[in-house]
């Protein structure tokens, strides 16, 4: 079905030792899966360190710097602390939902790693429906949030759970549709082939810079914004809004159970950045990946550099933007992102059927993307103008309120 994969070597070795092929494959898969899952768990420690360092630099602080070089072992200490904490179970919580929720949320995050292509041939499993597999796993996170909110028997947790679900659902649509633009272009849903399609071969040499993000900046931007919302990062972290909802749907969780939600959140954020790198920034593609021996190693490096770069970008946005209100969150998802991406898809679908050579079609898609960005920018500008007018008015003397006509700019919304 596909070329050589990572499991071939192990299977060959084991069958050479006289094991039946079925068992060899099972052992190989077991080893691979175990490595992947542990990679997810351990990289979360690193991610937390990166996050704290990045955020603190933006806030003119040093961040963790005591334990180990650059404070690298701070998160290890934190994990040790969390593991030795008492796990408090609130009275009247629902045993099934309360205890299953943290497990499921980690499960949903870790399983995503199964389809991430790390390097040429190094992908857990290159499913034909890889893209939809990722989207489908997102629904496990939704269920986990609902279960946690409901199971804790806490009004605030339930309310936050509802808000999380509303937000995740709203931003899942633009995210799925922005992935659809890539699928429409490549005609495949397997991540392996999507990355392979982003090479740029000139004169038999794979330059590896045919990234879709260059051609489809609007789709990439929409994916990035939705991934911020899906990862519950700051412009869209109103689910944790401390002033209203205490701490979100996991308020009643403590110790390791809380740590599980925490871990799932970081792994999720990283995988979303990795997905952006895969879908729009070429994954492991880069100059020199076509070379025989050094190529795969270079590809591995490229992938991680890109994924972590996008992750740091996420943190940058998180460190700079203020939190949106819930009505703005809804407005942005359904009235800005969804129409923009649906329009883009229709434009791209038409462009791809035009009887022109490929470069012309790509140029048309690029122009459509730029137009979409411009449209979204103008719409946002109008919205912000209306908002700032409203803010200004709410500070005017009360005697004037009611006597004034509604401003035209604001009345549009």
């Amino acid at each position, binding site marked *: 079905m596909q070329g050589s994969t990572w499991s071939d070597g192990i299977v060959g070795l084991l069958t050479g030792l006289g094991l039946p092929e079925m068992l060899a494959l099972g052992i190989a898969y077991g080893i691979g899966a175990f490595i992947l*899952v542990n990679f997810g768990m351990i990289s979360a420690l690193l991610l937390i360190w990166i996050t704290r360092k990045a955020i603190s630099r933006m806030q003119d602080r040093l961040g963790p710097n005591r334990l180990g070089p650059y404070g690298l072992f701070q998160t290890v200490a934190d994990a040790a602390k969390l593991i030795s904490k*008492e796990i408090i*179970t609130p009275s009247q919580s629902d045993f099934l939902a309360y205890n299953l929720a943290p*497990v499921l949320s980690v499960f949903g995050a870790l399983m995503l790693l*199964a389809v991430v292509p790390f390097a040429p041939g190094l992908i857990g499993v290159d499913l034909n429906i890889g893209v939809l597999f990722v989207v489908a796993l997102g629904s496990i996170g939704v269920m986990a949030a609902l279960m946690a909110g409901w199971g804790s028997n806490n009004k605030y947790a339930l309310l936050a759970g509802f808000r999380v679900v509303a937000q995740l659902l709203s931003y899942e649509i633009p995210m799925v549709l922005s992935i659809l633009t890539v699928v429409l272009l490549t005609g495949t849903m397997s991540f392996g082939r999507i990355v392979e399609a982003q090479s740029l071969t000139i004169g038999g040499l794979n330059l590896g810079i045919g990234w879709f993000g260059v051609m489809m900046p609007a789709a990439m931007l929409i994916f990035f914004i939705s991934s911020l919302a899906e990862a519950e990062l700051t412009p869209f972290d109103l689910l944790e809004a401390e002033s209203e909802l205490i701490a979100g749907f996991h308020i009643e969780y403590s110790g390791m159970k809380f740590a599980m939600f925490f871990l799932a959140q970081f792994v999720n954020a990283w995988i979303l950045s990795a997905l952006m790198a895969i879908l729009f920034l070429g994954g492991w593609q880069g100059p020199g990946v076509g070379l025989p021996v050094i190529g795969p190693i270079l590809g591995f490096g490229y992938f991680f550099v890109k994924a972590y770069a996008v992750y740091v970008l996420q943190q940058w946005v998180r460190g700079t933007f203020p939190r949106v209100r819930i009505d703005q969150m809804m407005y942005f998802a359904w009235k800005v992102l969804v129409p923009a991406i649906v329009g883009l898809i*229709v434009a791209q679908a038409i462009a791809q059927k035009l009887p022109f050579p490929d470069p012309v079609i790509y140029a048309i898609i690029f122009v459509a993307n730029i137009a979409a960005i411009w449209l979204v920018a103008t719409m946002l500008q109008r919205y912000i103008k209306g908002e700032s007018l409203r803010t200004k008015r709410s500070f005017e003397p009360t005697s004037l309120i009611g006597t004034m006509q509604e401003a035209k700019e604001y009345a549009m919304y």
Partner: protein
Amino acid sequence: MLSQYAFILIMSSIALILPVAAILMGHMLGPRRPDAVKNAVYESGVETIGDTWVQFRAQYYLIGLVFVVFDVEAIFLFPIAVAYEQLSMFAVFAAIFFVLLLVVGLLYDWRKGALEWQ
């Protein structure tokens, strides 16, 4: 193909066992001194009044509704996108018509204010 899903099966069992093991370890290593106040529901220190199952607004349901319809749309568009190279012009228009039908639905909800958070 089934061997690919064997990997998914193996990995999902590992991905389930690991968090369970971590939580059980937390249970074993951590102290265990529950009391009534500690186990009480946390509402910023204020005593809980009434039931948790307060009435929720229908807005949440409306979001779910629009989501369901667009989710179904997306699931149909993905195989069409995979097959896109081989499609005839008629098929392409059928697909675009399908998308436009749902856009009409979105516009209707927009006009009716179902997408606003009141």
